[in-house]
């Protein structure tokens, strides 16, 4: 470990990139859980779908990258709104299991459809942003820097939306007490649909942003969703600040253990951190527990 001084900026950078992206994904998951009590297993598959769309639009048909991002966000926002309107709304108030099984069905469907149209192979996408930036003698890929900054902006934007914009405030009200919110004249249907659209558009956008850095394949959602669950539970279920804390914590642990140990152990390190947190705070970092 004599070169620790050399690799730590790399760890910090990778931790920030991973943390920002995990947070972006976990926020979407936490948002719809807090509002609608839906544990969306398909969330990571929608991230994958964003990557696959980017592969076709940008990698194959050579559209402008920013146009691609806009199209991906629009498509997934519509998909989210439609799935809420026609699928999840029917199961509202039936408990945890129904929506969960439904999202599992959707997850299998998205994977199956991708398998048919995209094939089994994992593919890469040429990078839209290239080059290296050197800060204080340490060099970072511009691409990662861009992804990190965009993610951070989106995270801040989401928090601003929830805190200041009227429909965002309505979401918070719904999360706190759906009945009271309804009595105040908040349209549960409309707000739920909006929350779903935002959550899934963010997942798709994360997929589109990360597609040039990682590979795209029909199965990349499966390991990711477990990590997202860990993050959301670590932070406290349904807590948005908790999702940020969990996202960055796991991002840094993964980046550090990946650089210091091997890949296999990095996965176990995440669980080690999680177990420690759970022994001390079973309800997660910022959650109110369903303790008995």
């Amino acid at each position, binding site marked *: 470990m004599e070169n620790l001084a050399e690799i730590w900026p790399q760890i910090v950078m990778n931790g920030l990139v991973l943390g920002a992206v995990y947070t972006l994904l976990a926020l979407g998951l936490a948002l719809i859980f807090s509002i609608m009590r839906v544990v969306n297993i398909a969330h990571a598959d929608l991230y994958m779908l964003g990557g696959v769309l980017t592969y076709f639009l940008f990698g194959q048909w050579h559209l402008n990258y920013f146009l691609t991002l806009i199209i991906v966000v629009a498509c997934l926002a519509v998909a989210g709104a439609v799935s809420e309107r026609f699928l999840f709304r029917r*199961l509202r108030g039936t408990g945890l*299991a129904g929506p969960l*099984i*439904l999202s599992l069905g*959707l997850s299998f469907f998205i*994977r*199956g459809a991708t398998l048919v149209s995209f094939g089994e192979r994992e593919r890469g996408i040429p990078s839209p942003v290239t080059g290296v930036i050197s800060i204080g003698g340490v060099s970072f890929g511009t691409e990662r820097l861009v992804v990190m900054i965009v993610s951070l902006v989106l995270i801040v934007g989401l928090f601003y939306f929830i805190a200041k914009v009227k429909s965002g405030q309505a979401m918070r009200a719904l999360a706190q007490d759906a009945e009271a919110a309804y009595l105040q004249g908040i349209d549960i249907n409309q707000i739920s649909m909006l929350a779903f659209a935002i959550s899934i558009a963010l997942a798709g956008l994360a997929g589109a942003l990360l597609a040039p850095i990682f590979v795209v394949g029909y199965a990349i959602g499966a390991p990711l969703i477990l990590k997202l669950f860990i993050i959301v*539970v670590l932070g406290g279920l349904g807590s948005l600040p908790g999702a940020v804390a969990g996202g960055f914590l796991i991002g840094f642990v993964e980046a550090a253990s990946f650089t210091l140990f091997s890949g*296999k152990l990095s996965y176990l390190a995440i669980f080690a951190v999680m177990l420690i947190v759970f022994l001390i705070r079973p309800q997660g970092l910022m959650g109110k527990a*369903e303790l008995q």
Partner: protein
Amino acid sequence: MKNFRLLAIIVLLVLFVLVIPILFRNDNYILHVFIMASEISIVALTVRLMYITGEFTFGQVAFVMFGAYSSALLATKAGVPFWVALPMAGILSALFALVIGFPVLRLKGTYFAILTLIIAEVMCQAARVWDFVGGDTGLENLPRPDAIHIGTFTLIPEFTAIDKLPYYYLIAFLLILTIVVFRRIDRSPLGATFRAIQQNDTLAASIGINVRWHRILVFSISAFFCGLVGSFYAHYMTVFYPRSFSVWDSITYVLYAFLGGIGYLGGPILGSFGMIWLWEFMHPIQKFQPMIFAGAIVMVILFLPGGLFSLEKFLPSVAAQIGKMSGPLGKKLRRN
């Protein structure tokens, strides 16, 4: 109606233990699918047992895995015969559930569900890096169940790779055992206690039910049966890897239990056999297999929220139709 139900159970039992084995005596593929479906039915039934106390668990694969590893290690490292290792695997899994149940069952609801999912994943990942249990390559060359002879009488025949029939009967026995035990639990005061906890655990605690202890008890009972399945799996396949027990298997158990109808004892069994055979029937259109499977899941959960078994409520009208028929069967059904 009661006679009708009894008739249905007898018909299914005869089909399961006599007609299918005789009909498909030499068709190893069909027997294999039935064996897998029976295994999964048992685990799906344990998911239902947990659900009776109001919890749903994604961690059952951890106990299947624990059973498989303990049985395989007992057999290979200590030379324990299969017929001893099988119940031992169940007991060890139950003890394991007891130990992890104390901290884990402090949580409930979504926390508990996701935590069990994560525990299953941790165990799978830990087994991949732990060399004592075979690491990533797993365990292989596991012994098959031994034959037992009493004098000249063969109590249990030879288990071989080419003949799946002994395995079929072994898992059929385990499945029927599970059903009988769970039915007894359902109808016992213990089952009533579990349901009281499901309905309102605070109220249950206030009338003197030790909620935590009952949760741990049901966790251990379900782990026992998962352990048996794990042991069977190990000595049936004779080789397995940590990744044979992924959390996606665990998710599938929950899926089958709910699609079949978690409110009914027959639900998880119907769900497992139904969905597994649906999957197998779609082999000719392999490309679209996952999509159609997923479509079926979405349709069932949207239009039959009580699961496939909730179609049962239409049975009286079907029976009435049959009742209009002439003949002794019609007369008998009409009387009920």
